[in-house]
Structure formats: structure tokens, C-alpha cells
């Protein structure tokens, strides 16, 4: 066997037994390992639970605050603003025009938001760039008529008690997917307590199986 090989042989022998060479009974190495383990575990575990969601979503404030309670009091129900058109399609977030059915460029209330609305949008005839909490991606086709008319569901079942909100919460956008946080749901594990807590395909399927006995075919919800 050659010189070099000889050396390397010993060298690596040392290496091979380094961990235990000095004193197999002294387990400080192991102890330290355990401590390191616990520390690392806690750091990663906690950041995974607490830090990660913060990093994943970017917050956007709505153009101005919208008081649903007030408007529901004034108009009576959701449908007066979020209505089905005659052709069965859903109007979604109202256009400025339908706001102007009641509003003018004269602020109606004292609130700052009212002023912003009148000055920035009504006066300038600009559509309000609302962030839509419940926006689904382009590949999704959703028929409000099928649910509210045919299945007789109410808005709340999927959208929650929005009518009871006095302020517009910030819109949280997933930095990776660009989706609204409402789709996956507030709970980072996707655990839901209320039917409106998340709006993913599985949520649709779950209800469809219960109600129709079938998840539905691709084209039922995709385009």
C-alpha cells in the first residue's frame, strides 16, 4: 500500500471515530445536540406559525372605508347593490353609476370617507378601485344565480356577515399567488369554523357533495 493511501487511511480513521473518540461516556456532545435541537425546533416552529403568515401576505387598504351596516339600513338588503342582472349574471361590486342613484358629488355624511368618495371619485367620475376579498382566479366560473336562485342560498353562507361590518378590513394579497387571503382563509392551516372561512375548490366540492351528491364536472365551475 502506498504512502499516501497509508496516511489517508489513518486520517480518515480519525475522522470516522472523531465524534466518540475522546470519551464515549461523556454525553455533553449529545446534551448539546439536544439543546441545539430544541432551540432550532422552537425557532422554526414558531416562525412557521407566526412569522410566515406575515411574510406571505401583503396588506392593502381599501380606497376608503365602506360602512355596510349603514348602507344595509338605508337600502334594506344586499341585492339592492349586489344584484343579479336580467340575463342572470351577477353585478358584483357596484359601479360608480349605481352609487350615484343615491349619492351626489355633495358628501352625504360628515365622515372623511364620504368626502374622499365625493371628491376623488364622484367629482372626477372615476370608478372606485375596490379590492375584492372574494375574487376568484380567471379559470373559475361561478354562478351566483345558481346558488341564490336555484339553490336558494343566502349571501352570508359564502360571504359571511359582511352586512354587519362598519369598516372595511385591509385586503391581504398572497405575495406568491396574488390571491386574496379569503380564498385560503384566515387560518394558515386552512381550518374553518364557518362555511365562509375559505373558498377553495374543496370547499365548493364539500357542499356540492352534500347538496347534489356529486362534486360536479370540471366545466361546472371552470372556463
Amino acid at each position: 500500500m502506498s504512502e499516501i493511501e497509508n496516511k489517508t487511511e489513518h486520517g480518515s480513521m480519525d475522522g470516522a471515530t472523531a465524534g466518540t473518540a475522546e470519551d464515549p461516556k461523556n454525553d455533553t456532545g449529545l446534551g448539546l445536540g439536544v439543546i441545539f435541537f430544541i432551540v432550532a425546533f422552537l425557532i422554526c416552529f414558531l416562525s412557521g406559525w407566526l412569522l410566515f403568515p406575515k411574510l406571505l401576505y401583503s396588506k392593502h387598504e381599501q380606497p376608503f372605508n365602506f360602512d355596510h351596516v349603514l348602507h344595509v339600513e338605508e337600502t334594506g338588503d344586499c341585492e339592492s347593490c349586489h344584484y343579479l342582472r336580467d340575463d342572470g349574471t351577477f353585478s358584483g361590486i357596484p359601479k360608480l353609476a349605481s352609487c350615484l342613484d343615491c349619492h351626489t358629488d355633495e358628501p352625504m355624511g360628515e365622515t372623511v370617507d364620504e368626502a374622499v368618495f365625493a371628491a376623488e371619485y364622484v367629482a372626477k367620475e372615476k370608478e372606485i378601485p375596490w379590492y375584492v376579498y372574494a375574487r376568484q382566479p380567471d379559470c373559475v366560473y361561478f354562478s351566483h344565480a345558481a346558488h341564490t336562485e336555484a339553490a336558494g342560498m343566502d349571501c352570508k353562507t359564502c360571504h359571511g356577515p359582511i352586512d354587519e361590518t362598519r369598516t372595511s378590513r385591509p385586503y391581504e394579497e398572497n405575495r406568491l399567488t396574488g390571491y386574496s387571503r379569503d380564498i385560503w382563509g384566515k387560518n394558515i392551516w386552512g381550518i374553518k369554523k364557518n362555511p365562509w372561512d375559505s373558498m377553495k375548490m374543496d370547499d365548493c366540492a364539500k357542499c356540492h357533495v352534500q347538496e347534489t351528491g356529486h362534486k360536479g364536472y370540471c366545466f361546472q365551475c371552470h372556463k
Partner: protein
Amino acid sequence: MIHDKKAHKYGMVIDLDKCTGCGTCAVSCMSENNVPFKEDESDKKDSITWMRVYRLTNGRPFPDTEVVYMPRPCQHCGGKGDHGHSPCVSVCPATATDYGYDTGIVSQIYTRCFGCRYCMAACPYHARYFNWWDPVWPEGMEKYLSPNVSPRMRGVVEKCSFCYHRYQLAREKAYVNGSGEVPEEDYQTACTTACPAGAIVFGDLNNPSHKVHQIVKPDPHPDPLNPDVVGKSRNPRVFRLLERLGTNPKVYYMSEREWVRKMGDHYLDGEWDKVKNVYGSASHE
């Protein structure tokens, strides 16, 4: 699977004697379904045309030559025995295409497809197209894109959907009207409504009141000569493409001319003369 009696079976019948080969169906389809276009579309093997118009000739020399045009959308095959195992659906590894048992329409989901192209290999009609390039519209032209059909990205397969979005819209209309049932005239594909010659008739093959049913008279029973074949037409002038394969297309063709009907499938020597008179005779009325 939803197997209720009320299930629709949407299909079409194309009168090849009326078809002028003008290509309006193809363009109407492209414009309706956000089909892209590129600088050179003359290589028809990578040109996306959900509705393609083939030119058929009888192969006879001058002056006995005859020509007929055959528009070919996705055939929305019911598969062997019409059980819904279409050649393409059964092979898709990622469930990106499925058979709607409620409509008989074969779907294609672009966001799910990862572009293995097995479905294209399996389709004998070349009705499936691959996006070899990312679609690009000249500056500003993307303004005419319709929101009812999502534009595709590079690397996925697309095909005719029988304008399913029109069915979705018709359904919504039906819901607010309270009827819930979609009337024949409310769900028509873009090619059907566009055809200036009125050569295309579209509707529910299961619904005796629909024109397509009355023309095709589909035979509910399997063809005694070939149990895989179901829904054979009892109209002697009506035929399907490659019917013998048992793919059970929902697109029927119609022609007075024998050579055209013979063009629809392969026949060994002498077989045609046996078969041609059998058209419709398999019916059990």
C-alpha cells in the same frame, strides 16, 4: 357520476351539402373562444383551430371531380358503448379533461393540464391542439378578448368546448327566469349561429323536441353489428366520422352523396355495399 334520466346529450349535425367551405364557423369560434394567432399559420399541424374545415374530393379526374367541405369541431366522444370513457378523457394522467355526464361535453382545464399531450395522441380526429407558444396579441388587440373563456398559456392542450360558456350563461338566464330549463335557442354554439348557410344544427340529442334529435334520430340501442357503437343515426343520410372505432362522437354529418358518406369511415373491399343499406336499419322502433 350523475346518471339521471334528464341528463342532456348535446351534439350537432352538419349538412355537408349546405356547407360552402367559407370558414365563417372557424373564425366565429376563434373570436368567441379567445383563440390566438401567430405570424405564420400556414403549417396546419401547429395552427390552433378548434373548428377546422377539411376539403374532401371524390378523387375523380376532370370533369367528374367533386368537392365537399367538412367542418370538424371536437367530436365530444362518448367512448365505447357511450359510457363516457372518451379516447382522450381516459388517458389524461392528471384529470385535466373529463366527460360531463350531465351534458355529454368533454371538458379541458388549462390550469390543470401540464402538457403531456397523451390526449392528442389518443384523439383520431386531431381535434386537440397544443400551445407550442405563449399566445401574444398585437398591442391593444387583447382588448377584444372575452371574459367568458380564459386565455390559455404556453404548454397546455386546448380544444372545442361546444361553447360551454354559452351553456353556463344560458343556465344563469334560466335560473332567473325561474324555468331552470335551458331552451333550445338559448344554448347554441358560436359556429352554429355564425354559419351563413345554416348547415350546422346544434341541440340536445336526448330531447325529441330538438331539431338535432329529429334529424339524427339517434338509435338508443347498441349497433348489433358492433356493440361498442351506440347512438347510430337512423337517418340513412346521416353518418359519423370513424364510427367503427366505437368512439361514439356527438357530431353527426349529413350528405345526399354516397361518396361523401363513404368518406366518413374505412371499409374493406365490398364492406360498404353491405353497410350502406344498413344505415338506420339497426333501429328498433
